[in-house]
């Protein structure tokens, strides 16, 4: 099943009274099926921990301790029942089933449990032309020389970034997104850096609507003369993304 941006905020009521969003259910399902198949103690542990990290910044009414309690008692039986209920509940609601997504759950066992050096999904960066010397760190198509999975999109000004794009990047399943702009005091177009900062922080319209995982987002103010600072920060960011991705599997 797929959960598009439009309906990912819909709530689904469980029999035991808690509710969660469909986005969380997707993640939980993928993990629960793993647990069902492997019955591994280590996986159990990770499953408990991962259920905490499934919850994004703004949870909808569900307390993190609840799934742990459920999982702790009889994870297999209850998850069995739960997954049946979920599929029942959702199959009766036609708009939530998409035929192409379930195989994604099949693919999960292919990824090894060892953490990879970086995120395996692409990372997109929106970069201001005046903040970095893009030509020196990326090729003509925007792919960074140092990290082939990082794609840079060069803009005339950081102020051109629509906050929706940032959200869209993460919804498309990419690992992370970052923004590089000039420093506010030396922005080439004077106010681009300030406006973008205000938009991202919700102090200026258009704001980022809905949930946005800020752990997968970074904002740098840079200058062509100290872009090595940015590169160092980027390396650290990519490591964190890698850890996040592994933890969420």
């Amino acid at each position: 099943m797929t959960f598009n941006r439009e309906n990912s905020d819909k709530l689904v009521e469980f029999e035991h009274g808690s509710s969660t969003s469909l986005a969380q259910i997707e993640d939980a399902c993928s993990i629960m099926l793993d647990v069902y198949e492997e019955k591994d103690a280590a996986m159990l542990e990770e499953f408990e921990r991962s259920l905490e990290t499934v919850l994004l910044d703004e949870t909808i009414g569900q307390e993190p301790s609840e799934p742990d309690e459920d999982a702790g008692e009889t994870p297999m039986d209850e998850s069995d029942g739960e997954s049946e209920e979920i599929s029942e509940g959702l199959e009766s609601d036609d708009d939530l089933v998409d035929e192409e997504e379930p195989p994604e759950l099949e693919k999960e066992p292919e990824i090894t449990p060892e953490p990879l050096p970086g995120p395996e999904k692409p990372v997109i960066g929106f970069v201001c032309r005046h903040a970095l010397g893009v030509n020196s760190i990326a090729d003509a198509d925007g792919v960074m020389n140092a990290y082939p999975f990082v794609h840079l999109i060069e803009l005339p000004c950081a102020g051109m970034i629509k906050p929706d794009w940032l959200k869209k990047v993460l919804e498309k399943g990419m690992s992370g997104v970052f923004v590089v702009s000039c420093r506010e005091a030396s922005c080439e177009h004077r106010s681009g850096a300030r406006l973008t900062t205000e938009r991202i922080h919700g102090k200026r319209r258009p704001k980022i609507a809905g949930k946005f995982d800020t752990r997968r987002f970074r904002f740098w103010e840079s200058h062509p003369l100290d872009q090595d600072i940015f590169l160092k920060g980027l390396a650290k960011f990519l490591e964190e993304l890698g850890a996040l991705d592994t933890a969420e599997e």
Partner: protein
Amino acid sequence: MKTIAASSRKSGYLIFRESVGNFVDAIEYYSARFFGENSNPITLTGAMMIALVLISVVTGLVMLLYYVPTPGQAVASVNQLTQDARYGSILRALHRTSADFIIIILILHMFQGWARGRYTGSRSRSWLTGLLALPLIGIIGWAGYVLPWDDRAMVMLAWGRDIAHGVDSWPIIGWFNLGSLLTMPIFGVTGEADQLLRIFALHIGGAFLAIALILWHLKRVTPPRVRLPFAVWIGFVLVLLLVAAMMPVETEALRSLNPFELPAFIHIDILITFPLLFFPALGGAWTVFFILLILAMLAWLPRLERKKPRTAAVSDIKCVGCRLCLNDCPYGAIEMVPHPNPLKRRKGREIAKVLPGYCAACGICVGSCMFDAIELPDITSDEIELKIDEIGGIKEIPEPEILPDESFL
């Protein structure tokens, strides 16, 4: 990523200017690291000049308490100010020093504006009004030197008169005696008393004109940085006071009254009167001619770099008239016009319209629009979203081998 197409061939001038611009950029960067981002003097040149204008006005007003603009009492009153009044000499030195600093900072400001190409397109208006400021400050300074009506003032007057008559000897302009005509209010009067009063009015009227010129200059500047941070204010005033203490202003008789023989440098402030450097070689009129020629060349610069990237455009269908782009545009390049659709226009609906002469194609309006109604033709939101999808499609998820229906059977 398809970026804005770079120009295929750059002129030599452009290459030269951009290399200087990169150099200035580097200076600004290191200066920011030293002073701090918000206290960087290179970005604060404009704010410093405004602070200096305010300091000049305040010191000038206080000095006016003593100064009497009549030929008989001018020198005596100025001497009384300098010698008897408690802070008189500091005030006078501060007034003159702030004028010097205005000229130094003005030239630096112009230089960094030129080097970074901040005179093209919509910024040409700021450039031109700024160019007007240079001769204005020079004239105000010259008038300020004449006010004490001492010997140095006489020399300055003589130079001024000489320049005015020299202009009459120019080929075309001179046929109409334009030099004498334009300067008639000052040099055409007969009485000394009248002349001094006219120059006094020139000095103070010039101050009002300078304030109006600053407002006109800033009208077309992206949200201007006009406030000095408090720490910078303190440091700035201290530097001013230090220089003022080191270079006091004296009223004195000069040794030679020959207009073309430069007096000892310490007695004439060469910054305000730097044309004097060329007087021995060229004479007054030709010096002014070359100065005007340079100013004219600088004023012509915006036309040199007229090529601009394609400006933003508004979609009639999608724009709802919410004015977010208008608020955010740093160049004031958006205005509201009545909706082209008559039904909506009757309801008072407006849509945005881009003024191509002011648009610098920065894209901030694109980021501000919630309805995808305004786009840069070179990079549209659709293109970027397609690019995101394309990048996202690279992720290594293999195509499913079994049909999803079967997995549930």
